């Protein structure tokens, strides 16, 4: 870990109408560090990663990727939002994995992993194809390159989504509850891919409700509630020695339950036909 953080989040605030979703969040993520974010539903975890990835604009504070201000630039003494093209370029330097996978439904698995490499990062189609096949193999899906996303199980779709995000060599990977939409028996295949990435030194922020996983994979763990970072520390500190009563209350709700818990699970069952 070097000194300058890959991602720096400073006093970030975000409101939806009157509702304060992020209320002054500070967080640094260093090279190779894995930060897991836990907290009750509605505490602002998704909003945080979406703001980092510039899918939502923030209302205050600032974020930096490798020291570069995200989403804004200084022009003649005033901060102004970046034009779309440069915003897109900043997004292209981060990888995002969504709870609902969001694979491009009209493209094959292979094209999902190839496209951004070519259009955003200017790789040649052959190079992109080779890289895509390598990544699909890494997530254990080399046989599914020509399949359509809807033909895959949820776990397979999410592994493709991870390959797709990795294809552009992101500086940091952001996961928003990558297993919450999965049937319980499919959770492990996704988590093992994420764990593999962590061992490979990828810098990551992982929002998750899988407590044992949050503990195992993390270098540092963050507990959020009501748009604030309430507590942050090593997994040992957070899980074995929670300082705040709120974290203790939150963790107690998980103890003794099965590994897979999510209060945001969609009602319909995944179709895997």
């Amino acid at each position, binding site marked *: 870990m070097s000194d300058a953080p890959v991602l720096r989040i400073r006093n970030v605030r975000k409101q939806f109408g009157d509702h304060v979703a992020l209320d002054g969040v500070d967080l640094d993520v260093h090279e190779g560090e894995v930060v897991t974010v836990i907290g009750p539903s509605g505490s602002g975890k998704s909003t945080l990663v979406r703001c980092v990835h510039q899918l939502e604009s923030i209302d205050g504070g600032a974020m930096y990727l490798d020291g570069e201000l995200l989403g804004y630039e200084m022009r003649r003494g005033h901060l102004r939002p970046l034009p779309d093209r440069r915003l*897109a370029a900043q997004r292209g330097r981060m990888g995002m994995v969504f709870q*609902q996978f*969001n694979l*491009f439904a009209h493209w094959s698995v292979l094209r999902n992993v190839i496209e951004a490499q070519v259009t955003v990062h200017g790789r040649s189609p052959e190079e992109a194809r080779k890289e895509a096949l390598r990544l699909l193999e890494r997530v254990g899906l080399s046989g599914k390159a020509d399949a359509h996303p809807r033909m895959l199980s949820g776990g397979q779709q999410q592994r493709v989504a991870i390959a797709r995000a990795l294809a552009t060599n992101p500086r940091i990977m952001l996961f928003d509850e990558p297993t919450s939409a999965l049937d319980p028996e499919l959770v492990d295949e996704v988590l093992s891919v994420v764990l593999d990435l962590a061992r490979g030194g990828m810098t990551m922020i992982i929002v998750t409700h899988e407590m044992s996983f949050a503990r195992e994979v993390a270098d540092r763990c963050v507990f959020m509630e009501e748009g604030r970072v309430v507590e942050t520390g090593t997994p040992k500190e957070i899980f074995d020695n929670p300082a705040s009563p709120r974290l203790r209350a939150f963790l107690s709700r998980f103890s003794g339950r099965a590994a897979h818990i999510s209060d945001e699970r969609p009602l319909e069952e995944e179709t895997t036909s």
Partner: protein
Amino acid sequence: MSLAPQVLDVASARPRIRPLRWVAGAVLLVLVAQFAWFLVTNPRFEWAVAGKYLFDPNILRGLGMSLLLTVIAMTLGSVLGVLLAAGRLSDFKPAAWACGVYVAVFRGIPPLVQLIFWFNLGYLLPRISLGVPFGPTFVSWPTNSVISSLTAAIIGLTLHEAAYMAEIVRAGILAVDGGQRDAARAMGFTARQSFVKVVLPQAMRVIVPPTGSQFISLLKGTSLVSVIAMADLLYSVQVIYNRTYEIVPLLIVACAWYLAVVTVLSLGQRRLEQHFGKGQR
């Protein structure tokens, strides 16, 4: 008294007895027979005359013009419609507002009225010029030399069609899951790349079926241009029956061609729907 259950097998059952269907079928048969009798025995249909004109070169030329107008107005109208739909969904409020007003106006005015209006544009605007607004003019033409019945027909049909296509495309775009757009932006696509590469292709599934119907109504709608002396299919038969007074057989010729083309288009539409329906959810 009861039968032993194992003896029964519904595979041997007869169809349900439905007497009302027999009655309805008989009534229908009588009506069809009566109509056929009317078609065949009424000498005023002049079937022989209709047959004679069916492949008349003037009529085929008129049919070609109707098809050409349909294709041109549909193509231009679709392009304009996509732009209008994108404009209406834009977060740039003046654009959204302007596109909304356009759609309301051009959907609200009957296409026949629009055609006559464009044809008579020369009265309102004697010259058409290019230049700086409120400033000097670079080139200018007399409107009546620019607006022929062909340009009036193309402009009128295109602008009308664009308003409908804008609504269809907008509905299609709104039907695409928001997560797809998020994912596209997250991959580093620009707003335009996300729209062109991800959102629009997926919207096609919703856009194609009503667009097919739209194409068919546009083909029929081209018959309106006969009022501005545009030589379409209807105008071509009118020219002939104004001379020969064989109104009914010539209208039958027009009906036959419209029906034939619409039937082919409907088959094509079904193929397209099957094509765009697959690959997604």
